[in-house]
């Protein structure tokens, strides 16, 4: 009884000083938007400064000036001339594209089985997926490296590509999390209609899982594109076989006084990723949300 009595009382009290409430609201509105704008600047500023430095002359990039005196667009061409950027891009693309294709081919069936089949050990299998997903790659690095050394495949990117034929834990996890949300009625109906498992996968599951598959493909592609640890372990010392991240990591050391070229190279490595993001923004955001919320 007292609760119903106090609520209208408080509402009346607020209404009694509309000016103060409105002012407080305005101030809050300004504060919220001011912080948001500052936040956006903080997130964007590093990229802007990298861009400005990339256009400076060698000498100016070594000073503390922030704005280029002359706009040296030729710096980007210089990066191509002074490094094997084209070869690195090709290697990186080959690594990322093959690994992504293999991952999809191998992980979709596994996720399908984990999400749809009822069998003993199904829970254990899922927990195993999470365990391998969470395993730091360095833990098993030595024996795995020795396996590839036995096949004489070190000094190439194949040790990073071939295992994807046997499933990738994170992709399986993500796909499985999506597939369990598809109502069983769909697949049961297909079965009643006499569809085999394969046909159910192709006719029912795949069309419905398109957003999740797109997200997994993008994540895997970007993971490979950005990967540094893997290529560092396997790509060897010959620059011909390097990826972009390996090349960029040593760029500064070889061009130590040329911060401008280092920044130009940084931008060139980043640009493709940004372009793909703007083309497929929705897939990314939905995919990221899937990793966290359904997880």
């Amino acid at each position, binding site marked *: 009884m007292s609760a119903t009595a106090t609520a209208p009382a408080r509402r009346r009290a607020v209404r009694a000083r509309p000016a103060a409430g409105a002012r407080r609201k305005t101030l809050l509105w300004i504060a919220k938007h001011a912080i*948001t704008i500052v936040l956006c600047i903080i997130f964007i500023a590093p990229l802007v400064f990298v861009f400005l430095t990339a256009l400076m002359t060698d000498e100016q990039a070594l000073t503390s000036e922030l704005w280029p005196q002359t706009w040296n667009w030729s710096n980007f061409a210089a990066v191509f001339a002074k490094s094997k950027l084209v070869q690195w891009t090709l290697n990186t693309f080959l690594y990322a594209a093959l690994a992504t294709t293999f991952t999809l081919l191998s992980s979709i069936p596994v996720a399908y*089985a984990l999400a749809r089949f009822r069998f003993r050990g199904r829970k254990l299998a899922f927990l195993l997926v999470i365990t391998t997903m969470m395993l730091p790659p360095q833990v098993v690095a030595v024996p795995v490296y020795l396996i590839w050394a036995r096949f004489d495949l070190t000094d190439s990117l194949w040790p990073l590509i071939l295992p994807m034929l046997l499933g990738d834990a994170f992709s399986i996890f993500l796909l499985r999390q999506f597939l369990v949300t598809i109502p069983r009625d769909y697949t*049961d109906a297909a079965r009643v209609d006499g569809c085999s498992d394969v046909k159910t996968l192709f006719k029912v599951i795949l069309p419905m899982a398109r957003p999740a598959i797109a997200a997994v493909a993008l994540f895997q592609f970007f993971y490979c594109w950005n990967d540094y640890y893997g290529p560092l372990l396997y790509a060897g010392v010959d620059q011909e076989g390097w990826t972009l991240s390996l090349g960029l990591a040593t760029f500064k050391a070889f061009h130590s006084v040329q911060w401008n070229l280092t920044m130009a190279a940084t931008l060139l490595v980043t640009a493709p990723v940004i372009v793909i993001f703007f083309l497929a923004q929705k897939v990314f*955001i939905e995919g990221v949300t899937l990793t*966290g919320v359904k997880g």
Partner: protein
Amino acid sequence: MASRAHAAPPSRWRRSEGLRALVWLSPWLVGISIFFVYPLVATVYFSFHRYDLFTLEFIGLDNWRYLFKDDRVWTSIQNTLWLVVFMVPAQLIFALGVAQLITRLKSGLGLIRTIVYLPSLVPMVAGTVAFVFLMNPSTGPWNQLLALVGITGPDWFGNPAWSKPSLTLLAMWSCGNMIVIFMAALLDVPKHLYEAASIDGANAWRQFRSVTLPMISPVLLFSTITAVIYALQYFTQAMIASRVASGSTDSAGSVFTPGYPDQSLLTLPQWLFHAGFRDFSMGYACVMALLLFAAAMLFTTVLLRRFRYAEEVS
């Protein structure tokens, strides 16, 4: 429940389900045998041996004993722990704060989400190289901006006391993934809960504690565990920062001492990598690998428990 029973497939089909699942799972089962189970067993085996790619010699517990004499391994464990204790909470609190702020805006949510997410797509190597330049006291803009508000910035990546905080700033800049996840979780909290809370006279902080936190706790737990595991395997950014700031390469012939400045960025995975693949003390590297495995499993278990629970509920 009723509809499932109604549409139940024939029982012969049901009985063969285990076998068919095995067929579907077999490539993956082969995969984890080769790339997970065997390597784990082999790592334990190698940890009792001296192995340099050419000769394999049983040395009992010598590698394990060496662990206690090796100062660098303790330095690296301390550094990795620092990341877990400071970098992970900094990321989580920052991401949650940003997500809270953004989700309360009436308009522009999509645009701001894009801006905030973008840095997390910048390749790790590129982002680290950029930050080492930006925070360089003589050429970068960061200390100049600090000077405007009267702060004399340190030599961030060149000072052992500041190198890990510098990487923390980088980690906060690139935590867009976490922000997007938190935003989705916050938007999922039913509005009427806040209305009820505010009628009960709960202030903003109280609402956050009593409504927001419990509602997003599953997401928070998952993000925390993944962030911790990520911190345990923190490698690329630390290594690139050391290299670029010190100006050395890691190519053949040159001597690269990881962890510049003054081993302050030497993380456990880095020291493991260096011992195993630069010094070729592979047996000793396996000892460190087992330490890392134990630490990762500790946190993974928490996650496994949660998933097992979720499975039973569903």
